[in-house]
């Protein structure tokens, strides 16, 4: 694979070149397409004047805050449901009814309660991050070596010590996988909410560029959103490997 990394660049390069040539031949006066060179220029300009970076900051703040709130709630619920089986059984129907509600369906409710702005976006991101984290944490609890729990019982650890000293470290690799998934979801939901209604961040930027008939800027935003999403994904994978080393690989192999 190492000797043939260039193969991955052939197709995108060919596509970009074709688009460039096609746009140049036809003379680009289109309101929906732009030549790759114009897109690159628009991207550079928007990055230099700071507007795109400000939008990126807004989006990442909302996604991050939502991930933190939803993730912590999901973690707490997952530990509770995973360790106390009766609660899990009792809440089964409730959870199964609320979980499949699409994240965008709560969007109008958040709009009604919080109005436009960060709060409503954070609330929706938190709602959509809660479920995957909760479910992964709950199954991570079930995967803990039972003998560790016996040790905890034998040592008569308090519930808090049991969670912080045994349960949490034992389940950490799977919990981190859950957070990585949730981070990807958080970015997608944040951008979706911005495109749908919230006048904020990258999603709003791309919508305004489209409505202002600036195809180069619109596509520049699309490319930038792709870069942000890809970087976030790559960073989180790297962080996971650094933090856990071999434990992470075991998790993937399973």
């Amino acid at each position: 694979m190492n000797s043939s990394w260039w193969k991955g660049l052939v197709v995108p390069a060919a596509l970009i070149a074709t688009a460039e040539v096609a746009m140049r031949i036809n003379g680009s006066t289109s309101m929906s397409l732009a030549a790759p060179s114009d897109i690159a220029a628009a991207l550079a300009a928007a990055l230099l004047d700071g507007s795109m970076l400000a939008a990126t900051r807004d989006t990442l703040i909302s996604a991050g805050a939502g991930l933190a709130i939803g993730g912590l709630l999901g973690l707490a619920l997952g530990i509770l449901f995973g360790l106390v089986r009766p609660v899990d059984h009792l809440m089964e129907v409730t959870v199964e009814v609320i979980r499949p509600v699409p994240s965008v369906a709560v969007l109008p409710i958040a709009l009604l309660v919080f109005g436009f702005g960060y709060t409503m976006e954070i609330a929706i991101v938190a709602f959509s991050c809660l479920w995957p984290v909760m479910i992964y944490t709950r199954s991570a609890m079930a995967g803990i070596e039972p003998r560790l729990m016996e040790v905890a019982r034998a040592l008569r650890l308090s519930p808090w010590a049991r969670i912080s000293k045994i349960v949490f470290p034992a389940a950490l690799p799977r919990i981190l996988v859950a957070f990585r998934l949730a981070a990807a979801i958080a970015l997608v939901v944040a951008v979706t909410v911005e495109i749908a209604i919230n006048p904020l961040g990258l999603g709003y930027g791309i919508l305004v560029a489209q409505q202002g008939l600036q195809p180069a800027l619109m596509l520049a935003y699309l490319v930038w959103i792709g870069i942000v999403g890809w970087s976030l994904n790559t960073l989180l994978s790297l962080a996971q490997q650094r933090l856990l080393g071999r434990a992470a690989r075991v998790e993937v192999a399973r």
Partner: protein
Amino acid sequence: MNRSRFLWLIASFVTAAGLVWIWQVVADNRLVNPVFLPGPDRAWMALVRGFTTGDLDVKLLATVERMFWGWLVASLVGVALGAAIGTSPRLRAYLSPMLEFLRPLPASATIPVAIALLGLSDGMVLAVVAFGALWPVLLATVHGFSAVEPRLYEVGRALGLSRAAVIGKIALPSASPDILAGMRLGLTVALILSVVCEMIAGRDGLGTWILLAARSFRAPDLYAGVILLGLLGYATAVAIGLLEARLLVWRSRSR
């Protein structure tokens, strides 16, 4: 299903009913502003009214149709493309880096581009839904095809099977659990994108209905719409679960 499992299920239904009752009490005593939180009785009445005197059924059907067609196109294209890429190491070397880059791209970010290209039309919605739901199916298929036991391919070669026969008889059945998991994810994405497209493009459907209800402070209608969307999400999950159980019968039998 054993007895204790059944009893727990009943207890769980009772808990859910208890929570709805608490919601009712909270709403009746106006502990939360009724503009934000109508009681379940008002939401239910709005739901019934929407179906009997309104056109909620038409809107529901419109959303379901958008979701279904987009998902179907995505599934067919995704499996076909995934089979081509998954069975050819050369194609994989050329294409998979690009696919890896496109995968984390939020599908909703393509909506403005699709609007610019196709206008505020049903074709635009179909394109966005199909494009968004394509990725989970495509990547799951590629993964499923490349994870097929290599010895099975060797058997295929030894038997002199054609490429189509290898795909149809060996790779596709072996990859079907992955493909179905991808299609399940694709269906969730399709529902979300259908609703978002309706909200932005104003196409008639549940998405427009709940957004209009929120903007005009008709909270019971809004909650009725959200409940309906939740039921729709639940129904699609159950439907694909049944499909999975039916298609993968051989898998549980062999274990």
